[in-house]
């Protein structure tokens, strides 16, 4: 019954003396936060140098921002789950489910905002179920959300009968197409979510508890933090954001598609890692993954513009992801 001594928790001699000497290295994660920004700028500079007229045109930068908006919202949710040492593999199919619910509401001629809320609610419920199973039944996040990936995708197909619902709504289309001060509306929405989530993570009680549960669930529990509540909340948020992103995806493509888009999932995990969020939990920023999303979209856009064949694009993106992730690791 006695607690065994844990050598891993013993002090690391020299570590703190070095830290007190070099103030800027006081936080060993400081540089990993900035690496993604450097990488992003590098991508802009490289493509800008190769084809400045096409890549750096306002038209194209606008394209990159439009393309980044929906992934950025999904990435925020993913960041929350990864910060609790979890992962949400169901985001892409929850997005699809949200879109299908939106489509069903739209066919019943409900107002667009009701359709949107319907999609968000469906997403949130799926997320809460994820969180409850993970925390109450103590089943691995990976497994539970993998199951939900399938369940949500299947539910979307069942509810939609496998058929897309065309959604023609000028208001939604305006949101997807238009811009203000050179920045697309979609990006304003995504950025607002990013800023609010940053606030939530670093300036609220919920945020501290989230990071505590991610960093050290046993210590958090010992201090009376409810793991269940935090897990349910983060997966609920992730689902809610996926459900919300569904509305934007509908605005973007003008239809509620019943087939899940797994590219969004892979993109979100890559962006979270590139953004310097620890897969072991407890360590996160919101802006890092956001910049990483811009990076990935700029990369894809730039490769397309300079005419790199699709096959090589897969390889390039993979290399950038792995390279950045290993750089982040080295910096740590």
């Amino acid at each position, binding site marked *: 019954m006695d607690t065994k001594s844990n050598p891993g928790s013993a002090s690391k001699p020299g570590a703190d003396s070095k830290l007190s000497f070099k103030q800027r290295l006081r936080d060993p994660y400081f540089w990993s936060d900035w690496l993604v920004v450097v990488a992003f700028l590098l991508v802009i500079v490289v493509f800008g140098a190769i084809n400045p007229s096409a890549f750096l045109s306002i038209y194209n930068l606008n394209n990159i921002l439009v393309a980044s908006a929906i992934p950025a919202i999904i990435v925020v949710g993913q960041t929350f789950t990864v910060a609790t040492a979890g992962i949400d593999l169901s985001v892409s199919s929850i997005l699809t489910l949200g879109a299908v619910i939106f489509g069903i509401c739209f066919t019943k001629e409900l107002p667009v905002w009701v359709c949107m809320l319907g999609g968000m609610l469906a997403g949130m419920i799926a997320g809460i179920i994820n969180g409850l199973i993970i925390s109450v039944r103590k089943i691995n996040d990976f497994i539970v959300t993998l199951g939900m990936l399938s369940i949500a995708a299947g539910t979307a197909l069942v509810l939609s009968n496998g058929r897309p619902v065309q959604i023609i709504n000028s208001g939604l289309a305006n949101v997807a197409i238009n811009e203000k001060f050179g920045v697309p509306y979609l990006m304003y929405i995504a950025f607002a979510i990013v800023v609010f989530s940053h606030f939530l993570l670093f300036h609220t009680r919920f945020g501290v508890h989230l990071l505590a549960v991610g960093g050290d669930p046993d210590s958090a529990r010992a201090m009376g933090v409810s793991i269940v509540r935090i897990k349910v909340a983060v997966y609920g948020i992730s689902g809610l954001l996926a459900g919300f992103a569904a509305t934007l995806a509908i605005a973007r493509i003008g239809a509620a598609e019943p087939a899940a888009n797994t590219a969004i999932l892979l993109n979100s995990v890559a962006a979270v890692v590139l953004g310097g969020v620890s897969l072991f939990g407890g360590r996160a920023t919101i802006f890092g993954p956001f910049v990483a999303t811009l990076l990935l979209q700029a990369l894809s856009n730039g490769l*397309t513009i300079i005419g790199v064949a699709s096959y090589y694009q897969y390889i390039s993106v993979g290399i950038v992801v792995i390279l950045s992730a290993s750089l982040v690791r080295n910096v740590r």
Partner: protein
Amino acid sequence: MKRKSSAVILLAVAALTVSSVLPGQAAAKKKAKDVKIAAVVKGLDNPFFIGIKEGIEETALKYGIRANVQAAPGLNDDVGQANKLDSLAGQNYDCYIVIPISSNNLSQAVGKITKKKKTVINIDSPIDATSLAAAGGKVTSFAGTDNFAAGEAGGKDMIAKIGTGKTIGLIAGLAGNVTSAARIDGFKKGALAADPTVKFVGPENADWDTTKALDKANAMLLANPSIAAFFAANDQMAQGISKATNIGTKKIYGVDGIADALTLVKSGKISATISQYPYVMGQMGVQACIIAAQGGKVPEKTITPYYIIDSSNIDKALANNSSRGYFPNQLPPGTYDNPYEKLIKK
């Protein structure tokens, strides 16, 4: 997008031999080799779309054009595909050839291109007209197969081969996929027209995948030993069915006409493939682009051919070798109508 820097405009003007303000008139003098073509196809993990890509690239090369062919990041990445088209739209291509992943996903991106007064040619799967109109987009020409008709022809042909009163197993692609649904629905219609007493098992979704189709076929045969023949919505799945345990000499029909399927038709492992000609779609797409750039009148809609390739015409189909090999039968074994070719000014 209105506030493009003057440098960009200057370069753009320099890049084009003529201004693109009024493409209908000004571009009329354009030589075929000066037409700049970009294409966004579906995911390239499917031989069918590789066939289209080859058709676009090789046809373009015949006219001295290097076409930039891009694919969606993934087979289902509808938004990602729209992003790709957006990326290309920022550059000064004269013409964009597109195959949408879904009937709606490229509408807005096409709308943006239309605003820039550039030509869009739609091949293979059609963009939905309503959503296109809502986004202010315009497609100059469509060239694609009629999947329903192809399925229908397969249904009639199969009944002729297996006789009446039989049970046919159906294996479909991804749930919710329009192409798969059209082929399956067409097949059923054709078979029922030839034999109202025909019975169907399925369709089971095997996601266009060889292995999944094999598993589904095994399960279906176990549950319904009376199945006399299979129809699969693509060749890869037909290939999977041919490896099923109790398949014996049951008839198997696939759709597409990919290289592997032709080999299997030749060796008798599968009975027939309803061959479509993606290469021809790519070819027509490029030709339509050139006609539009030359200011000619482009045919609005063209149905590309399909042929049932079985033991009777397999040798002829195999003779049309491709340089790269996925679709050996680049061109149909018989004649087909290409309304575009003759409209191109030399």
